[in-house]
């Protein structure tokens, strides 16, 4: 077992965002989390990374209780996180950031190789600053490159399609389709995109802070379609 969440609860402003989440993730899996807006998906993955602290419950990573560990200690144990909104840094170049991500000396060529894998024309980007001059799609790819370089045992993507246009996303999705080769270990990705759900080994459906279903993307999507039809039919009556 790679990761185990035991009875995770999280409440803010008198709203229960996560209600007794229990979840187990195996090694070498590609797992997608989906569900409506406000269902607690982002909060859940932030709790795994340590960005948010649960009110109760335990997080076990490779048999070790990491509930009280800070973000950087979790990173060192092998958890990586790609942000929904990539962070910008004035003065720090793409190459600087990739070196920091790798945690060891990497050559410019190695940095360029990773950038190429995430679909960026490397030479144009490696010396640019990670600032507002880069587009949303470019920043997303750089963000993905940083987690690829971490070679984490568990890599989390918090809704990578958020905030980028359809055209950029169509290109980006190919990166995710190749993700199994790019990223070793387990991938946990929040997504609403059918193409991403289809490449997942398993899909976890989260609603109102609870895991309501878990299975293949086909099963989950079919059930949801049936539910929607039922809802519509009921409304018509």
């Amino acid at each position, binding site marked *: 077992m790679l990761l185990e969440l035991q009875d995770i609860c999280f409440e803010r402003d008198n709203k229960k965002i996560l209600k007794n989440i229990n979840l187990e993730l195996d090694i070498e899996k590609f797992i997608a989390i989906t569900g409506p807006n406000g269902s607690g998906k982002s909060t859940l993955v932030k709790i795994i990374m340590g960005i948010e602290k649960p009110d109760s419950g335990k997080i076990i990573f490779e048999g070790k209780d990491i509930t009280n560990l800070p*973000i*950087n200690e979790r990173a060192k144990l092998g958890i990586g996180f790609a942000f929904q*909104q990539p*962070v910008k*840094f004035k*003065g720090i170049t793409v190459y*600087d950031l990739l070196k920091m*991500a790798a*945690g060891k000396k990497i050559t410019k060529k190695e940095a360029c190789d990773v950038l190429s894998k995430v679909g960026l024309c490397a030479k144009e980007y490696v010396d640019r600053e990670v600032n507002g001059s880069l587009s949303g799609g470019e920043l997303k790819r750089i963000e993905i490159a940083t987690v690829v370089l*971490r070679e984490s045992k568990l890599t989390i993507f918090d809704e990578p399609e958020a905030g980028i246009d359809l055209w950029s996303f169509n290109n980006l999705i190919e990166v995710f389709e190749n993700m199994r080769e790019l990223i070793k270990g387990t991938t946990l990705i929040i997504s609403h995109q059918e193409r991403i759900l289809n490449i997942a080994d398993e899909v976890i459906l989260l609603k109102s802070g609870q895991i309501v279903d878990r299975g293949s993307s086909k099963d989950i999507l079919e059930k949801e379609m049936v539910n929607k039809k039922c809802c519509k039919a009921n409304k018509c009556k």
Partner: protein
Amino acid sequence: MSEKINDIDKDLLNEISDLENIPNGAYNIRKNGQGIERKVTDNVNIVTKTDKPGIDIYVKENTKFEFIHIPVIITESGLNDLVYNDFYIGKNANVIIVAGCGIHNDHHKDSQHDGIHRFFLEEGAKVKYIEKHYGEGKGDGKRILNPVTEVYLKAGSSMEMESTQIKGVDSTIRETKGILEENTNFVVTEKIMTHGEQFAKTIFDVELNGDNSSAHVTSRSVATNNSKQYFVSKIYGNAKSFSHSECDAIIKDNAIVTATPEVTANNVDANLIHEAAIGKIAGEQITKLMTLGFSEEEAEQEIINGFLK
């Protein structure tokens, strides 16, 4: 280098001008108020002023890609060194000038260096001017640096100035003035870091007098502890001209940063932009670097190092 230069001097020279050995090109090394080493070349002549302390540097026209080093070091506590250096850059010459001042003060008296540098660029000349300021020493005597830089750009000339003060200077007031004729470009990049009780004030005063003149002033600073920084930028667009000035500051602890932009358009075709952003390090930046394995303190340091790079 000669025996007049000891190990402390070498360290200071290295900090301000990356000089460990005798540099290529012309140079003039000033220590404790006296010129101690000088070299001139076929294209660059250095002459001691007779009416006041300082030197005149003459660069022949069409000189291409020569280096000129003029470092100043002060190791004597209590010394107040005032120096006037004038640079006359001939037509179409292209040179890199490295200046800077390093103060080592182990005692309790204040040490001060006020360098007044004037640059006169003839038509088509290009200068890259790099200036570093650095202070060190265990004494409680203050290390004070007040540089004044005046830049006069004739038609078609351009100057790029990089000024850096990262460590150990207790008090500084730096004034930079530019007078630009037509088709000229003046680019200034300033990086300052203050800590403890340090004080730094920067004043830019640029007059865009000729058509198609442009100025880009960028200041990046970090103020920590109880230090104070003031950034004043005055830009006058007196012709069809363009300017962009930008003050970006990170504050920590109880530090104070004030930015006062002033842009005056005296011509309908003057296009003048100013941006100022002051704030602490964004929490999300620290979080991102923590997900890459850095502790909070290490993340902060990486962000500052990148910002001031």
